[in-house]
């Protein structure tokens, strides 16, 4: 598998990350290298040892919490780091969607 610059630009846009042309070419090469290594591993291991994807390294089992209310933050605390606020609301640029 190889990573084309186009793909890097696309993922960067999805992630809202602004990349310069130099960065795009740098990351393409680096990601290409990483994925190339994974390809190599797959070839070495071959079909006989297909490993299912691990979505968690933990073996902990089912940590639940009971349905109980715990104190929330005070609004002042919740809003303390907000770049903009009005009253008890976070204020953001208007979202237009029609």
């Amino acid at each position: 598998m190889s990573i084309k610059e186009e793909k890097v630009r696309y993922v960067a846009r999805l992630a809202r990350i602004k990349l310069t042309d130099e960065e795009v070419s740098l990351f393409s090469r680096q990601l290409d290298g990483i994925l190339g290594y994974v390809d190599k591993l797959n070839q070495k291991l071959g079909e006989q040892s297909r490993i299912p994807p691990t979505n968690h390294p933990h073996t902990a089992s089912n940590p639940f919490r009971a349905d109980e209310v715990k104190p929330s933050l005070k609004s002042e605390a919740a809003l303390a780091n907000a770049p903009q606020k009005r009253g008890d609301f976070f204020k953001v640029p208007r979202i237009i969607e029609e």
Partner: protein
Amino acid sequence: MAYEPVIGLEVHVQLKTVSKMFCGCATGFGGAPNSHTCPVCLGFPGALPVLNQRALTGSIRVAVAVGCKISDKITFHRKNYFYPDLPKDYQISQYDEPLSEHGHLKIKISGGEKTIRIKRVHMEEDAGKLIHEEGGDSSFVDFNRSGMPLLEIVSEPDINSPEEAYRYLTDLKLLLRYLDVSDCDMEKGSLRCDANISIRKKGETGLGTKAEVKNMNSFKAVKSALEFEFERQVKRLETGERIVQETRLWDPDREITVSMRSKEEAHDYRYFPEPDLVPFMLQNDLIEMERKNLPELPGARKARFASAFGLPEYDAEVLTQEKETADYFEECLGFYDKPKIISNWLMGDVSGYLNAKNLSVRNSKLRPQGLAGLLKEVDSGKISGKMAKDIIIEMLDTGEDAGVIISEKGLAQISDSGELDKVSEEVIAENRKTAEDFLKGKDNALMFLVGQVMKRTKGKANPAVVNRILRDKLTKKQGEEDA
């Protein structure tokens, strides 16, 4: 060329828990903006989500009730997108290992039942709420809703008319309310529905290009939006145009759907496993416990009401439309053993009152014992059915016992023949001509005399008793005159 719509529905319901899905913030409505928030539901770095057990068991209950296959292992995924109401820039949802898949819901359609397959039932968290300033250039965010537990129920495209979509929603809501997992109140947003609709020529089995329709705030709106959308798509095909895959919003004022022009670059959510939540291995006993504790479901209860209580199908259906009403009915039966009479009162005067006041029977002041007490007074002849109709309103208003209202207002029916004797004599004496008419064979004349007695007793006389007394007196008089 005849077309038919092919519809699939995505329903989100808010699960009835006291705390949010992954944190201990309260789920109740009405707090000041952002007062039900914490580092987890605000998406602060380093905060760790922990699954609410009741959210999981409630979800399992629904999955079991719609006959889904429940996975032994469930995982959560991050659904990535950017929107100001989503504090983490991802929503914790489920992707390739959802809670459950492959269920079905039987819906009532004219002339029988239809099975709508359910593709999957999975858990996810809700986003916050955005409020737009009229004409301004800012929006405001309240994260109280962020992290509320949601259940998403996705149907297969088995629905073939707006009417069927409406039935599906009604029957699904009924089921969810019986399961006591959600309030399913569309107005409060605890039930939301999006619809996918495409059309095809009748008889074909393929699927056409679909449009996703959003922004319906009632089941009726879903039906109207689908009716509009069906016609719009038919018109397009008939005029040789193509149908574009897009999201459209229902505009309830203009009663049309409008394309969402936003540049939603073909949704690419880049789902990946949520590393903050380990996979859950569902023990079979947890699933079995929910299965065992499943309440009697609406269809079964309706059938039982008809067979065990001898109620007409219509009564059985109406009484089981809300679990609460059905429970109430059965409680009444514990105090008064005439199912059809209770049913008549609940479906008639009581529901008339409740609808006018927008109350549920449990929120009214009428207790099952109270209703039973009133019906017994009617049976004993102490009051007439007509009086009972007035008394029940008072009971619903005040919660007072029938007996108390009857004696306080002097409402008891006069069945005492001594008193009615006297009044009847007077009425006959003052209406000689009418009395004679009756004796000549005019039955209506008697009704007039009964009416006069009722009037003099201010409606308190027992009409049956008055009827008997008058008839006796008049025929006796005739006998005397003839002799």
